[in-house]
């Protein structure tokens, strides 16, 4: 028997309210199924299960609050379930999911809200959740645009006050526990600017790359060279993360902030990064993030250049061990290779890192690697 626990959807989360179960005792679940919805300061989040099995007991009722790590349900794993169940029932599990077998109206609250915005009848949508429950992901796959006159005017997907409280707690903890060190380097972005001008020419607006995209890829590849900056520090130990999942700091109207993960950035093409980044930011603003995006960042990137800031010294989000800051691009005179003076676009890239895990030397290696990578954007 294994436990299905309240997940941590970020270091700033201590507890959440379980708002809806999408399964009941006796239901078969598969790894990746959305089985419940929890309400956090970051909005209503669908949470997935990470193993195959059968729900045995529900431990937390709908409407109850539970701390991170609390047992929400007990699950008999697939092997255990196979021992106790008739073969006929096991065979039935292998049948493809059919929308017609779904109990009418089974959908997560987030999916219900989104379906209303889109003007969709949930009974017409094939659900991928347990018992065919419709999840937010199912609706997103349909690619339907919202109707103009539906949805609640001015509805806010986030509780900004609660969000500020959790950010305050996480940042205070960070400053209390993490011995930060800070480094900055000025990167000449002329090569990126020239390359992007050629790349974007003739492309439709939605296909053009902003300078953030090659910068993100360079940061990800730089982390491959200095893996100490990518991971977590918990229980007096550093664990380097295998995947490079960059948390993108996204400001929300009204003062909120979320930093969902853009996963495996080092393995994506620039076009894939752009498409996934657009999708992630759009869903972050809409309050439709997924649990793994909120719990997944292995490092955070904050782009304050947007707001005219030249240099940013960020506060690390625990238990991560580093944060990369981007300043704004400014045109300044600088020396060229021939000793002359040219005007070039320059950007300050900064690193805030945890001194318990890395030293300034490693931080410098990372920033130098990013700088070097940005001088050959065509190779990113």
């Amino acid at each position: 028997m294994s436990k299905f626990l309240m997940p941590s959807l970020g270091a700033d989360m201590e507890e959440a309210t379980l708002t809806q179960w999408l399964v009941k005792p006796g239901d078969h679940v598969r790894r990746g199924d959305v089985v419940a919805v929890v309400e956090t300061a970051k909005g209503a989040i669908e949470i997935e299960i990470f193993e195959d099995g059968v729900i045995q007991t529900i431990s937390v009722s709908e409407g109850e609050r539970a701390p991170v790590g609390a047992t929400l349900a007990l699950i008999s794993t697939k092997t255990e379930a196979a021992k106790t169940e008739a073969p006929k029932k096991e065979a039935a599990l292998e049948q493809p999911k059919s929308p017609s077998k779904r109990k009418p109206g089974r959908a997560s609250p987030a999916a219900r809200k989104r379906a209303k915005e889109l003007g969709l009848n949930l009974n017409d949508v094939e659900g991928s959740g347990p018992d065919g429950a419709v999840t937010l992901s199912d609706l997103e796959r349909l690619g339907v645009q919202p109707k103009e006159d539906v949805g609640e005017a001015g509805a806010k997907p986030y509780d900004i006050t609660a969000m500020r409280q959790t950010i305050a707690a996480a940042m205070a903890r960070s400053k209390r526990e993490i011995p930060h060190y800070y480094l900055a380097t000025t990167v000449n972005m002329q090569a990126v600017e020239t390359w992007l001008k050629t790349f974007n020419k003739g492309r439709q607006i939605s296909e053009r790359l902003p300078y953030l995209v090659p910068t993100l890829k360079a940061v990800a590849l730089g982390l491959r060279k200095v893996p100490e900056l990518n991971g977590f520090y918990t229980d007096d130990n550093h664990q380097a993360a295998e995947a490079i999942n960059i948390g993108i700091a996204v400001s929300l109207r009204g003062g909120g902030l979320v930093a969902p993960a853009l996963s495996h950035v080092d393995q994506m093409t620039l076009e894939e990064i752009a498409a996934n980044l657009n999708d992630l930011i759009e869903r972050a603003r809409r309050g439709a993030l997924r649990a793994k995006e909120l719990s997944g960042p292995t490092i955070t990137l904050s782009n304050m250049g947007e707001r005219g800031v030249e240099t940013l010294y960020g506060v690390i989000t625990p238990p991560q061990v580093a944060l990369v800051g981007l300043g704004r691009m400014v045109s300044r005179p600088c020396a060229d290779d021939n000793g002359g003076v040219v005007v070039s676009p320059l950007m300050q890239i900064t690193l805030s890192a945890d001194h318990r895990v890395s030293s300034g030397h490693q931080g410098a290696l990372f920033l130098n690697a990013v700088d070097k990578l940005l001088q050959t954007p065509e190779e990113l």
Partner: protein
Amino acid sequence: MTSAKKEELNRLILTELSELAPEADLTRLDPEADIREELDIDSFDFVRFITALSQITGKDVPEEDYIKLTTLASATAYFVR
């Protein structure tokens, strides 16, 4: 372009802006003010705004022209041309 067409364009631009900044009182928006600063719109949302206007008007907006769409007045003038 007729003044009625210009007014219609102006209305469409305001509609798009209200999507991005639903809390803003757009009746008080200075037509010459930089909408990115006035409405706290970042580059991601600004590109969304340009994409929407391009789709509505059927007119492509080259990257070097983005700067011409930063105020209500200049955006209207750009698409009136």
